[in-house]
């Protein structure tokens, strides 16, 4: 491994570094005794008690005592008394119902001692157990137990303790020093759950002085210190705590007391020890995971955690698999909480695990959102004020058109000949107007905006002039707010020419508000739709005379009472309303449309239908000029003909020049490629 990654920031670090050079986090777990020992298995390979054990050995050697290992080997299969104390005393399962579990007296007994301990020897309950064990051992005569029998014969054997199952109750290095080393191999046919007799204690001669010193205290434990006395402390400083010993049964426990040297158990441990029968303890220890509810994380915390870093369910390891603390005051204990924070433990790099499982679309949306947020935070640069540039083409076109329009008006040339060809519908319209009854008024509807007055005034005047030539009374109205002044303006220009007087031959009804509904209402009841009128002489208004009381409209009660209805409009919608809403109530009264050139295609279908709803159309300045020519008069259309012609000609040339310019550009670009 060439480098090591920081468990905090996952950045690479030199292999010999102890702290991350990026974030300063510790790269190895905290170990006060030296460098990090790695995982728990590695810690087990180098027992932490070795240093203090070596120290004790050195002291013993200095005192002239033999090596403890050598002394132990002198009497093979024998254990010192102090080791007998901490080795769990076994009793056959049938010996008591409480075998293999913590007896009840441990929970209820006094700490630090028992009442059974007297100065004359083992307590009564202990002697009873020993006697029963001896009898049973003799009756059974099992092989490999001879040494146990010998041990039992020794008066120094304090008690027989049930040996717990492996894995469920193992001696902890540093506290139960000799426990991992069995005194004798087990018989293969021996049932594993059968408790083994602990080996007899070694003789006093075989025990080294340092062990005697330590074991003497244990042995003196048989004399049971008074209740409530604190546990004895070995010379190396660790308090002596007798191993948890499952006694033969609860009934054998002294009432109201704990065995000697028993440490105080926490409540949870006592409760756990009292839960199941003796046989259930090993199984419970093996299946600890199944008995305990798995530690699950809440859903919100589950969603927040890194996917590959932590497990959702914390598996509680068995005691053998748990690491042995190698440093600090808890050195030698197994299964303690790890001093180092979990994030500092060696684990997989968090960089990869922090990658969220997102689709490309989600990623794109996140990128878009990120960009939007960045754009919001970005300070807008003050935009440079763009200097207005003169658009040469636009100004050139405007100048050409203005010049073309003004030139005939100012200089009188060029002069274009009046159109020799006239539209097909012009003749029928002229005939229609020419045959109108002169006693019935004609209704003129000025439904166009002032912007179209340049065209429609000229087109409409041609028709209006023919009506005036015929002497037909005229009534005007409009459905647009600006229509009435337009009507007044046009009629005011033509009326003096033909002797029309307002209120007598011509009358203005004014503005009809309401759109299509108002047109329908006016078609049904004209007098109810428009009440007064517009532009009547002052004397008529002073006399309270309305437009309907004038000679023009005196006999008109319906739309069919008009001799002609003429709609002057530039909008197709208005023309459609009149053709569809009013024509049904007009009877034999013809409907004529005076249109702008742009509205002609939309109105022509009403005119060319099998049952036409429009009886005549007059469209555009050329048709108006032709109409005036047919009348033999030179009206407004003829006056504007030359300006119209030059402007149109200029527009045609400009369009042609644009087409040629574009094609030449395209050809040159193609040649360059």
């Amino acid at each position, binding site marked *: 491994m060439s480098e090591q990654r920081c468990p905090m920031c996952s950045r690479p670090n030199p292999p010999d570094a102890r702290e991350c050079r990026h974030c300063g986090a510790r790269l190895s777990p905290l170990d006060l005794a030296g460098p990090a020992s790695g995982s728990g298995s590695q810690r087990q390979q180098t027992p932490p008690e070795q240093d203090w054990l070596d120290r004790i050995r050195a002291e013993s050697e200095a005192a002239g005592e033999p090596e403890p290992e050598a002394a132990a080997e002198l009497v093979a299969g024998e254990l010192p008394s102090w080791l007998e104390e901490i080795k769990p005393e076994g009793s056959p399962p049938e010996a008591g119902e409480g075998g293999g579990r913590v007896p009840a007296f441990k929970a209820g007994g006094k700490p630090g001692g028992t009442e059974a301990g007297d100065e004359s020897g083992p307590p009564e309950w202990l002697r009873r157990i020993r006697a029963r064990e001896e009898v049973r051992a003799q009756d059974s005569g099992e092989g490999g137990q001879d040494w146990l029998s010998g041990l039992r014969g020794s008066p120094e054997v304090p008690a027989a303790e049930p040996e717990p199952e492996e894995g469920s109750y193992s001696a902890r290095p540093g506290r139960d020093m000799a426990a991992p080393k069995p005194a004798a191999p087990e018989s293969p046919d021996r049932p594993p759950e059968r408790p083994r007799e602990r080996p007899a204690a070694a003789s006093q001669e075989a025990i080294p002085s340092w062990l005697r010193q330590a074991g003497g205290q244990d042995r003196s434990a048989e004399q049971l210190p008074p209740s409530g006395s604190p546990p004895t402390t070995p010379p190396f400083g660790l308090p002596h705590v007798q191993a948890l010993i499952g006694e033969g049964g609860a009934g054998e426990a002294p009432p109201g007391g704990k065995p000697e040297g028993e440490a105080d158990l926490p409540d949870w441990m006592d409760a756990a020890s009292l839960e199941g029968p003796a046989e259930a303890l090993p199984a419970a220890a093996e299946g600890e995971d199944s008995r305990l509810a798995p530690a699950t994380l809440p859903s919100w915390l589950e969603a927040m955690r890194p996917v590959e870093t932590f497990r959702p369910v914390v598996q509680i390891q068995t005691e053998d698999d748990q690491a042995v603390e190698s440093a600090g005051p808890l050195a030698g204990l197994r299964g303690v909480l790890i001093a180092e924070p979990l994030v500092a433990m060696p684990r997989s790099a968090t960089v990869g695990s922090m990658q969220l499982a997102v689709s490309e679309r989600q990623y794109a949306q996140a990128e878009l959102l990120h960009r939007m947020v960045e754009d919001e935070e970005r300070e807008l640069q003050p935009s440079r004020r763009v200097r207005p540039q003169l658009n040469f083409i636009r100004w050139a076109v405007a100048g050409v058109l203005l010049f073309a329009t003004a030139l005939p008006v100012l200089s009188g040339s060029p002069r274009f000949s009046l159109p020799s060809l006239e539209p097909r519908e012009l003749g029928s319209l002229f005939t229609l107007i020419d045959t109108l009854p002169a006693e019935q008024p004609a209704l003129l509807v000025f439904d166009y905006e*002032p912007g179209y007055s340049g065209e429609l005034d000229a087109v409409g005047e041609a028709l209006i002039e023919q009506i005036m030539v015929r002497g037909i009374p005229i009534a005007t109205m409009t459905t647009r707010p600006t229509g009435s002044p337009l009507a007044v303006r046009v009629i005011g220009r033509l009326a003096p020419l033909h002797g029309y007087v307002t209120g007598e031959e011509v009358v203005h009804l004014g503005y009809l508000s309401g759109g299509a509904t108002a047109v329908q209402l006016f078609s049904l009841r004209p007098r109810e739709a428009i009440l007064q009128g517009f532009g009547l002489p002052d004397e008529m208004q002073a006399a309270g005379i309305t437009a309907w009381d004038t000679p023009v409209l005196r006999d008109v009660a319906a739309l069919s009472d008009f001799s002609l209805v003429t709609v002057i409009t530039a909008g197709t919608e208005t023309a459609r309303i009149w053709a569809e809403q009013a024509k049904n109530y007009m009877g034999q009264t013809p409907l004529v449309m005076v249109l702008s050139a742009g509205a002609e295609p939309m109105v022509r279908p009403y005119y060319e239908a099998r049952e036409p709803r429009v009886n005549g159309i007059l469209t555009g300045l050329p048709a108006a000029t032709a109409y005036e020519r047919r009348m033999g008069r030179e009206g407004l259309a003829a006056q504007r003909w030359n300006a119209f012609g030059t402007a149109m000609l200029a527009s045609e040339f400009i369009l042609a020049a644009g087409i040629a310019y574009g094609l030449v550009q395209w050809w040159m670009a193609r040649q360059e490629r």
Partner: protein
Amino acid sequence: MRVRLSALWAAVALAAGLFVLLGYFVQLKAIQDLRLTFLHWAVLLAGAALIVGLVNLVSVHWRKVGLLEEGWIYSAVLILALVITLGLGLFFGPDNAVALFIFSNFQLPVETSLMALLAVSLVVAGFRLVSRRRDLYTLIFLATALFVMVGTAPWPLPGLGNFEVVVRDLRAWISQVWAAGGARGILLGVALGATATGLRVLLGTERPYGG
């Protein structure tokens, strides 16, 4: 209660529409009178809506002037012109000489000038069209416009009599066949849409009045 009110509104609208529609087919005096009444109400409501729109216009521009928003000066001119013409119309009538003078010398030239600017803009756009967008449809569009203009405008070359006739006929063919055909299609679509909308309103499926 809300459901009942919406049903009431729908019933009122349905009844009004059916009575007006029946007036086209049934010539009973009661139905015709009822139809006329509804039409009167509609015209009155249209006039009231015009007043409401006028008030809204004034309030919007008044707020712009009060807050000195961008272009507030135009809003101020609008309000000033509105007050002047409205005062003239209310006190002297809409057909008094001053009102007609304002119309003929302010509104009419301004709107006519806007139409003239539109003509210039259209010609400029036509000039640039081939340079900006060079494809077949552009050429067809410009060629059609050019043919119609040539056929409409005064003929600059009086000597080519037959050619003038051909051009005029071509212009008439374009405007009275192709353009009129397209216009008829549009009108048919409009008629179908109006019929469908009317039926939806009469059946209560579409309720533009809410509910």
